[in-house]
């Protein structure tokens, strides 16, 4: 095994892979956040909690109904997405006429409720969720040991992000969405049911988070804090990438995951704060974010 710059290859590639995996989650979550923020102008503080719900629904599907991972990938986003639609109709839609900060506070409160209920039911240490047998095992590459499931996570997340980007940029529905972001009353005047689109958009963003949750379940073991640990980093990612930009969210997510992974190799103590430091620097140099429009 060779060493790169004095770092053993397994360490370098191992951390690179782990960085990509983290980046995949950052990208998926910040994508959902960016979509929701673009249309609703709400910072969805409950995003982490809904990510966690996605993982728990997968666990419950297995535990109560015996439905495995592949079912969960399909069903969990739908179930949690439907829950998201409910939240939007019952609570969030009442705040559109108010200061956007109220949306932040409301979704923060919702996050507390969701997390508290799950913590009550399931305790705060993790519940194990097995890697599906089709994806378990590792490839013994010469320069590192690559667990198959983790490679799958990266690949799937990339596909999901690409698919979302395609829908938004290349389809008619996406065009309506982007138009409504710019000028909702006008789009409404053209006969498009904007409130319904808003509701569905929120549901879709939430579903994306839940999908991330299912992907995360075998890695992080399903526990009520898994979302809140992640979400603040995701906020930093979104601020760096630029709040309105879909592409920015994805690129920044993956990129920052890699940066974090590399920091763990060369300077492990800083790995938790490096993303925030980058955020400060970006804010000072380009207040709108790397890809954002001021």
């Amino acid at each position, binding site marked *: 095994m060779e060493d790169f710059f004095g770092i*053993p290859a*397994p*360490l370098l590639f*191992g*951390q690179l892979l*782990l960085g990509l995996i983290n980046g995949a989650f950052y990208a998926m979550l910040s994508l959902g956040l960016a979509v929701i923020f673009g249309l609703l102008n709400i910072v969805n503080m409950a995003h982490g909690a809904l990510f966690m719900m996605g993982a728990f629904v997968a666990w419950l599907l297995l535990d109560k109904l015996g439905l495995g991972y592949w079912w969960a990938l399909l069903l969990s986003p739908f179930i949690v997405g439907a829950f998201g639609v409910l939240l939007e109709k019952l609570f969030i839609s009442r705040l559109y006429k108010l200061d956007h900060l109220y949306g932040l506070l409301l979704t923060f409160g919702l996050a507390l409720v969701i997390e508290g209920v799950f*913590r*009550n*039911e399931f*305790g*705060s*240490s*993790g519940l*194990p969720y097995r*890697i599906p047998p089709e994806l378990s095992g*590792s490839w*013994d590459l010469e320069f590192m*040991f690559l*667990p198959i499931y*983790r490679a799958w996570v990266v690949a799937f997340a990339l596909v999901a992000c690409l698919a979302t980007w395609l829908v938004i940029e290349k389809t008619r529905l996406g065009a309506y969405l982007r138009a409504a972001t710019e000028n909702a009353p006008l789009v409404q005047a053209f006969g498009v049911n904007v409130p319904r689109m808003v509701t569905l958009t929120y549901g879709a963003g939430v579903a994306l988070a839940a999908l991330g949750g299912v992907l995360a379940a075998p*890695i*992080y*073991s399903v*526990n009520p*804090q*898994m979302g809140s*640990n992640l979400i603040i980093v995701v906020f930093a990612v979104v601020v760096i990438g630029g709040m309105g930009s879909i592409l920015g969210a994805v690129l920044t997510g993956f990129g920052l995951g890699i940066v974090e*992974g590399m920091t*763990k190799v060369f300077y*492990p103590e800083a790995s938790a704060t490096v993303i925030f430091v980058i955020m400060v620097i970006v804010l000072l140099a380009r207040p709108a974010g790397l890809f954002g429009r001021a």
Partner: protein
Amino acid sequence: MATHQRGRLPAGAQLSGALALGRRGLLGAAGALAAGGGGLTPARAQAPTIRLGVLTDMSGPYRDPTGPGSVACTQQAAAEMANRGFAVEVIQADHQNKPDVGANIARQWYDQGVDAIVDVPTSSVALAINGIAREKNKVFLNSGAASSDLTGSACSPNTVHFTYDTYMLAKGTGAALARSGGDTWFFITADYAFGHALQRDTSRFVEAAGGKVLGAARYPFPATTDFSAFLVQAQSSRAKVLGLANAGTDTSTCIKQAREFGLTRNMKIAGLLMSFMEVHSLGLPTAQGLLMTEPFYWDLNDRTRAFAERVRPRMPGQAMPAQVQAGCYGVSLHYLKAVADMGAAQAKADGRAAVARMKAMPTDDDAFGQGRVREDGRKIHPSYLFEVKAPGESRGPWDYLKIVATTPAEEAFRPMAEGGCSLVRS
């Protein structure tokens, strides 16, 4: 005490034996408060009441080896010491592994009538309560924390440290592995008092056996559930032994993920603090062959089997008691014997005197056999090195361990003179 809140249970407390509260039930809470609070139980007991507060981890990574099981074992001890001239009341609370939460509960409990706090796994919380018990001259009966500092630099005349400590664990598992060829180590360490102490004590034994510590990765506790980054680091260090300076679900998760990343091909895994509860959650196929050091195992001898059968009905899920839980039984029983010996009123008034009496009386219980409490507060008893059985060797549920070696009590723990405890007159 001028500031007694009338008729109100201390916050964070529950009556056990009434409805088991835990995390379920607003109704349960209302029921417990109605049954025991609201000023409906004034001093109707002619005999004084000794109050034991079990402060433990009810919802986090240490829930299974301690938690509700610790409460059950303490209740068992209280039941066995009924009719000695005083009533015994057991209450419980969850410190959530946070020193400030634990300290607040402890302070309030001690100010409002609790005589002894029992269990407290999580060394950072235990160290905080160690200080408060001393300040208020109450009693701290620790079963769950491992840091050997509790009888070393932080020793106190109000504290008895039961079950195990990091020195005993390091001497057991660490020295055994170091002697059998594990001469290079990499630690994955829970980044708080316990992890640091365990890593420190184990390193000493490794180096004494001629080995070397190649490195350590510290992770935030209790927030970490994915250890892959640290495992990758361990793997690239090319050490022969992976030392897990953690406990509870952290240990079982590390072991599972180590398999995933192929560490088990080249490295031996040393779960420095493992109880058979972790074996239970890992399953024998994954855990077989692992070495662990414990001072209690339910299947050790006739007395331990008898104790396990007695306490099982009270345990959550009818599980067999694990070492920390049995420790709660042993330390509470000995405390109550000391109280019976010196009179309850005296014991309530002076925590230091009660602990001194515990040190003067030899201990004898079904879980740990005969032993004694040293001057520095350390309870000593033999420690046993176990190996996890292969699935074929196990004769039934809970039959997980076979004994490999025994260390007598006087050798199992750090010699008093080496601890740096101010109570020890050299």
